[in-house]
């Protein structure tokens, strides 16, 4: 039986993992390779790395990290951030990433998804979308870190993404992100029902119970989270044991 996936997400800045600001002005950083190894050993099913840097020089540091991670872990990982062209995709795949996650660039140029899927295969093209509720039962796609409304309907964009050739969708809910009050079940379920490709839920994880709810049949195929793992609030083996007890299929024999 296909297992539901648990995916820690790591932001990488200047070659280090940024764990956000837990306390004011204190930025916790760590070595991405070490963190990747730890999550791998703990039983993470996949990892996501977001490059939050901008310059070309820093991009090369990031690519070196991708290669180091690939050398150290034997689980799939996705790279996101700064993917704008087919050449960007080629570079990260060649460095050892399994999938690329495309967000704003796809909104600006939807054909990028199509070209990328044709060239590299749908299996490695992930469409990541940032959605925010704009009225009752309606969500809109936002870009630039959730600052700019594109007035594109989230459900329509998800369906378009599948049609263009994306092999997976990541649904980030801006409304619940960072709140730790649970994933956006309503939005994730709506999208999962509208498409026939895997759907990854993102944003809002705070407790083991939240994972359980989002990974129920018919909702998400995978759950992505950052801070609950980074700060040791949820230990992956505990999470998987709890999910298994609730009959949610998870991989435990790592």
């Amino acid at each position, binding site marked *: 039986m296909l297992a539901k996936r648990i995916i820690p997400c790591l932001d990488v800045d200047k070659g280090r993992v940024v764990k956000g600001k837990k306390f004011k002005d204190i930025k916790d950083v760590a070595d991405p390779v070490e963190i990747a190894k730890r999550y791998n050993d703990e039983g993470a099913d996949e990892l996501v790395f977001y490059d939050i840097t901008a310059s070309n020089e820093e991009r090369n540091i990031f690519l070196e990290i991708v290669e180091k991670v690939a050398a150290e872990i034997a689980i799939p990982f996705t790279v996101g951030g700064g993917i704008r062209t087919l050449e960007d995709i080629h570079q990260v*795949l060649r460095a050892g990433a399994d999938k690329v996650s495309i967000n704003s660039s796809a909104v600006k140029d939807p054909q990028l998804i199509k070209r990328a899927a044709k060239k590299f295969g749908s299996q490695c093209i992930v469409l990541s979308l940032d959605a925010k509720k704009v009225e009752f039962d309606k969500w809109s796609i936002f870009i630039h870190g959730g600052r700019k409304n594109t007035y594109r309907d989230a459900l329509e964009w998800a369906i378009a993404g599948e049609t263009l050739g994306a092999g997976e969708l990541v649904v980030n809910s801006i409304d619940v992100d960072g709140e730790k009050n649970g994933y956006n079940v309503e939005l994730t379920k709506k999208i999962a029902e509208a498409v026939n490709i895997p759907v990854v839920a993102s944003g809002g994880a705070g407790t083991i119970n939240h994972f359980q709810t989002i990974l129920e049949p018919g909702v998400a195929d995978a759950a992505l989270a950052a801070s609950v793992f980074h700060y040791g609030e949820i230990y992956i083996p505990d999470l998987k044991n709890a999910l298994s007890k609730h009959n949610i299929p998870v991989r435990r024999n790592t």
Partner: protein
Amino acid sequence: MITIIDYGAGNIKSLQFALEKLELESILTTDPDEIKKARAIILPGVGAFEDAMLALKNANLVHVIQEEVTNGKPLLGICLGMQLLYETSSEGGISKGLGLIEGKIERITDTVKVPHMGWNTLSMKQNSTIVKHVEQNAYVYFVHSYYASEMNASELVCSTAYGIEVPAIIQKDNIIGMQFHPEKSGKVGIQLLKNFGGMVS
């Protein structure tokens, strides 16, 4: 020396790293002479069936692979690389494969999500050295939209359940196919690659 056939796009680095860890020497090549010299061949794979066959044809590799494998050289086909071993695929019209194994490749039906992406279990159908030290229901990582739909049951080593029974590991003498990615399947995958290494004398 194991030759990994390099026919373009995709992540081959993880496979190289996995082989390195196992101290199995490998080179990435499209040189027919290297393939002839090698003790084993790995045909990796991501992307589309027709494009991959075209790339093999353009590099004049089809005949070399067929000849070397027919002469008994161990070959491991991974993901699309496994599919290429069969006679035909319905991906993007009907395309001819390497024809080393009888059977054809079809798209997974839409009763389940396509692609089949994620960790799924191996159900053992018969014993083989390729699955030595691998437990029943061990998880491996799949990502594919097509599968070997018509094949000889005698060649099925492991299957996985995804709407239908999907052949996961197939073997015909010296030819092995893995529909999942052993290089991405944690310790289980490393063991499977180690077992393949053991077939390389």
